[in-house]
């Protein structure tokens, strides 16, 4: 058993709340993805778990007909307008879910161990640059694996304190060498 003093903070994952972002849920038939991607200025990924990004905008395929779009907050209105303009050519449903979710970033040594405390899925099997909608101790999260030990988690607002507490508890357990 190691003691807390043995761990420098740089040996532990950092847990941050990221600033608000524009966030959209996009539902459409796969045949519309090309037109919608063009309107968004990126290529919509075709397979569940794949991600793309362009000029600060990011997309992840969550289901066969569902994507989440992330963008800088000030970019939101332009996205709504661009997709409204594309509606005639490519029918779809776009919902602004910017306020629905809180975004955490967990990064640094021990990040995968911390994820394993809440996720039944093997997060290490999600390649860096990919992601998944999955579950973290009962709460649905959209997990973006940005690097080997670097993930972002989008969590529904009402579940965010629960997820945050669990992350902090897990970090304390890592610090205690448990």
């Amino acid at each position, binding site marked *: 058993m190691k003691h807390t003093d043995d761990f420098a903070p740089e040996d532990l994952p950092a847990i941050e709340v990221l600033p608000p972002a524009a966030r959209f849920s996009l539902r459409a038939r796969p045949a519309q993805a090309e037109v919608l991607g063009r309107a968004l200025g990126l290529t919509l990924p075709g397979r569940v778990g794949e991600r793309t990004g362009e000029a600060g905008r990011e997309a992840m395929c*969550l289901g066969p007909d569902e994507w989440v779009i992330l963008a800088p907050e000030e970019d939101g209105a332009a996205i709504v307008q661009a997709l409204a303009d594309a509606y005639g050519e490519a029918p779809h449903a776009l919902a602004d879910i910017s306020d629905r979710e809180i975004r955490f970033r967990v990064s640094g040594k021990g990040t995968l161990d911390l994820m394993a405390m809440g996720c039944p899925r093997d997060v290490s099997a999600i390649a860096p640059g990919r992601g998944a909608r999955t579950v973290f101790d009962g709460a649905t999260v959209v997990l973006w694996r940005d690097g080997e030990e670097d993930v972002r988690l989008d969590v529904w607002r009402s579940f965010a304190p629960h997820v945050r507490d669990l992350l902090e508890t897990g970090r304390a357990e890592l610090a205690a060498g448990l």
Partner: protein
Amino acid sequence: MLLIHCPYCDETLPESEFAYAGEAHIARPADPSATTDEEWRDYLFIRSNVKGAHYERWRHVHGCARFFNAVRDTVSDRFLTTYPAGAPRPALSDLEASE
């Protein structure tokens, strides 16, 4: 924990990401008001409750969110196959032959 293959994600994932959703291939009567009380009761409540290969629905609720179908052995809990919603019911003989 069971591992379940989601036919939409094409990945085998922990059961905790999924929700069970009852027996599969139960079609709602096209004209409910034309059914007798007994037929409607059977549609709502009567299930096969098999011992062995069971055709059932699952939902990848903490994932792609899609409903799909599975054939699971209710004795061993082993999944014989999973397939997309709307696909025809696979014959049991084919599933057993492929093992």
